[in-house]
């Protein structure tokens, strides 16, 4: 059984190698190879899952040691996999959603000349992401972490002939680099503190390390999570990452890679449990991001960027839940999985809409599309109901649990967090309703434009994955919630404590539904009852700021880029004038002096004689003088 774990990573890695090295011969059929190997990885995952279910709870974790990577005395870096319940959850999500998106991409990228390369990158991403979640130590996790960063960079910049895509890819890569530095430092700290970076020794001995060390490690891990999961203050790359093809946005920038930060925090739960200060920071980051992303999502007219803001906000929920400790880990992962379903479905729906609308992304040029794209409408609609937390659908269960856990944090903090999550739920309902109304309802604003699009339903190969994801969006939450099955499944890895909420579960549910109705109602008043203008109105100060991502780029520019530029210029000036000046000045001084001295060598014997006589006279004079003294 253990030996199958390697195959999970091996299949997509093989696919990436073959597709990227295979050359043009594979252009015609290569994408099917990508789909096949991704599917093979999923089947392997299902087989392992079935095997895992057959065992008693405490013996489910599997371990496979492949080889020792760097054996140096006490520094033993192993390439070894650990498949426990947490990793299993991720494996099924990644390979399952990944395979669906591979299938969808066959249709979506049909006319793209780089389709083989696209599938090669997608397979590379799957391999790296699986390595990330299967690694049994932080160093191998770091390899996967960098791997998904690379795949994300390559896929955002897939259409690199567009300058905006190339710049967005570079931006994502650079911002992620800040977070990666945090992960590297966290691993250094672990090695000095515990003498190891393998999960088992680090996490089992975490309590012995002292709170200061744990806080430091926790904050560095949080920095890493912020970079990868687009949390404030490293959130600025996610919006621009929408330059990539839509399946990429669905797979990497909604369902899987951006949740790696949540995985990291949950996996390192033992460290955070021993560092309450770090946990507080995690919770604050999550709370700030969930509002930040939601506000940005309200103002964007680009359908993908509105969804990107929503992704940021939903991951904020997960990070917040993960920061609550053992009362929240399981719910963070549960929301992560349900979010994986409905957000991937929403993005695929957005891709389907764009497919039928000549790649138009501006929602002000959509409208009334439900008649033309019924399947997209229904699947998108189910994803929409799931994300806003419509009672009975998956988002309702997972988000409700997080809100309840936030209240259960206790004290003033609990009330503040509870309020923030409720407000977030209302805003979520608002912006998602806005997206829904602007896209599928109202007037057909695309009529009468130049290049009037001819909206049409996407081919089956695209709609089938959307339908499957819609099923997941509807039923996953209820399935997980039934008998607390998901919580019990994860309990051996993440621990679980029942939070004691000051408000009853029924009251929280009631408040969530009220928030939901307020959000939907607000959006309907603004976008449903009145026609949507096809040119964006000027809007309030907040709207204008939110359209510019709440000035994140301006702030980065003012705080980081400008001072950096000045520093560089100063350094260049100092290098040219001071360092080079000193060096060149010394050289010039010696050169000049030598030039003068050279004139003494004029070739005339008599002048040499003069210097001889002069020298002799000086020597005699000096001798006499010394005598006299």
């Amino acid at each position, binding site marked *: 059984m253990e030996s199958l774990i390697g195959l999970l990573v091996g299949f997509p890695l093989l696919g990436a190698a073959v597709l990227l090295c295979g050359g043009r011969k594979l252009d015609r059929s290569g994408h099917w190879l990508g789909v096949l190997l991704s599917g093979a990885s999923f089947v392997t995952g299902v087989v392992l899952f079935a095997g895992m279910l057959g065992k008693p709870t405490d013996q489910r974790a599997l371990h496979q040691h492949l080889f020792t990577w760097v054996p140096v005395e006490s520094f033993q870096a192993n390439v070894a996999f650990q498949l426990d319940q947490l990793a299993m959850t991720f494996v099924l999500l990644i390979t399952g959603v990944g395979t669906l998106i591979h299938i969808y991409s066959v249709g979506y990228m049909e006319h793209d000349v780089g389709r083989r390369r696209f599938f090669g990158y997608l397979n590379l991403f799957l391999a790296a992401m699986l390595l990330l979640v299967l690694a049994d130590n932080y160093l191998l996790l770091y390899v996967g972490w960098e791997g998904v960063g690379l795949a994300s960079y390559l896929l955002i910049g897939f259409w690199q002939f567009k300058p905006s895509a190339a710049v967005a890819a570079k931006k994502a890569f650079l911002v992620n680099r800040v977070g990666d530095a945090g992960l590297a430092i966290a691993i250094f700290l672990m090695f000095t503190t515990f003498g190891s970076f393998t999960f088992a020794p680090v996490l089992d001995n975490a309590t012995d390390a002292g709170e200061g060390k744990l806080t430091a490690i926790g904050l560095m891990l949080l920095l890493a999570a912020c970079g990868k999961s687009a949390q404030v203050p490293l959130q600025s790359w996610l919006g621009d990452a929408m330059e990539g093809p839509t399946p990429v946005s669905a797979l990497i920038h909604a369902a899987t890679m951006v949740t790696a930060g949540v995985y990291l925090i949950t996996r390192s739960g033992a460290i955070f449990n021993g560092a309450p200060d770090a946990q507080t920071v995690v919770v604050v980051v999550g709370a700030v991001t969930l509002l930040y992303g939601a506000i940005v999502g309200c103002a964007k007219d680009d359908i993908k960027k509105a969804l990107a803001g929503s992704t940021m906000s939903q991951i904020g929920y997960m990070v917040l839940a993960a920061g609550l400790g053992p009362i929240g880990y399981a719910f963070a992962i549960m929301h992560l999985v349900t979010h994986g379903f409905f957000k991937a479905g929403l993005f695929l729906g957005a891709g389907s809409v764009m497919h039928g609308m000549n790649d138009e992304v501006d929602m002000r040029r959509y409208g009334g599309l439900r008649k033309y794209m019924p399947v997209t409408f229904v699947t998108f609609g189910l994803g929409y109901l799931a994300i806003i937390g419509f009672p009975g659908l998956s988002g309702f269960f997972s988000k409700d649990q997080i809100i309840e856990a936030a209240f259960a944090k206790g004290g003033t903090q609990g009330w503040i967090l509870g309020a923030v999550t409720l407000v977030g739920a209302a805003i979520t309902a608002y912006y998602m309703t806005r997206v829904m109304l602007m896209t599928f309802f109202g007037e057909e604003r695309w009529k009468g434009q130049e290049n009037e699009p001819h909206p049409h339903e996407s081919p089956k190969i695209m709609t089938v994955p959307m339908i499957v994801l819609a099923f997941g969006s509807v039923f996953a939450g209820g399935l997980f919630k039934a008998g607390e099955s998901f919580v019990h499944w994860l309990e051996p890895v993440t621990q679980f404590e029942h939070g004691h909420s000051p408000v009853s579960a029924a009251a929280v549910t009631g408040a969530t539904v009220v928030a939901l109705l307020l959000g939907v109602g607000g959006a309907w008043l603004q976008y449903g009852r009145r026609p949507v203008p096809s040119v964006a109105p000027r809007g309030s100060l907040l709207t204008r700021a939110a359209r510019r991502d709440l000035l994140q780029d301006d702030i980065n520019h003012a705080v980081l880029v400008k001072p950096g530029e000045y520093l560089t210029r100063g350094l260049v000036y100092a290098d040219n004038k001071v360092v080079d000046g000193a060096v060149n000045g010394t050289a010039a001084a010696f050169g000049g002096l030598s030039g003068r001295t*050279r004139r003494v*060598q*004029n*070739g*005339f*014997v*008599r002048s040499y*004689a*003069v210097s001889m*006589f002069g020298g002799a006279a000086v020597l005699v004079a000096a001798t006499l003088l010394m005598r006299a003294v």
Partner: protein
Amino acid sequence: MSPVNYVYLAAVLFTIGAAGVLIRRNAIVVFMCIELMLNAANLTLVAFSRIHGNLDGQIMAFFVMVVAAAEVVVGLAIIVMMYRSRHSASVDDASLMKL
């Protein structure tokens, strides 16, 4: 007559020789002036030998004469070769030893 006067005479001779070396261009004259300086030195050695009443200076003078004789041979040979190659005995014409 005080032997010190010989020292004065030697000083005068040396000065004349040094001035000749510095001023004259003709290699033969320069050479002669060098001989003059050597002999002025010899004269001082002999004079001091007399003043101090020992023979060290006189012995030294003989050595100088031997070395001077050898030097004359080499120096004249150089001057002859110089004249043959450039038809001039001027020391300023032989100014190739420079950058």
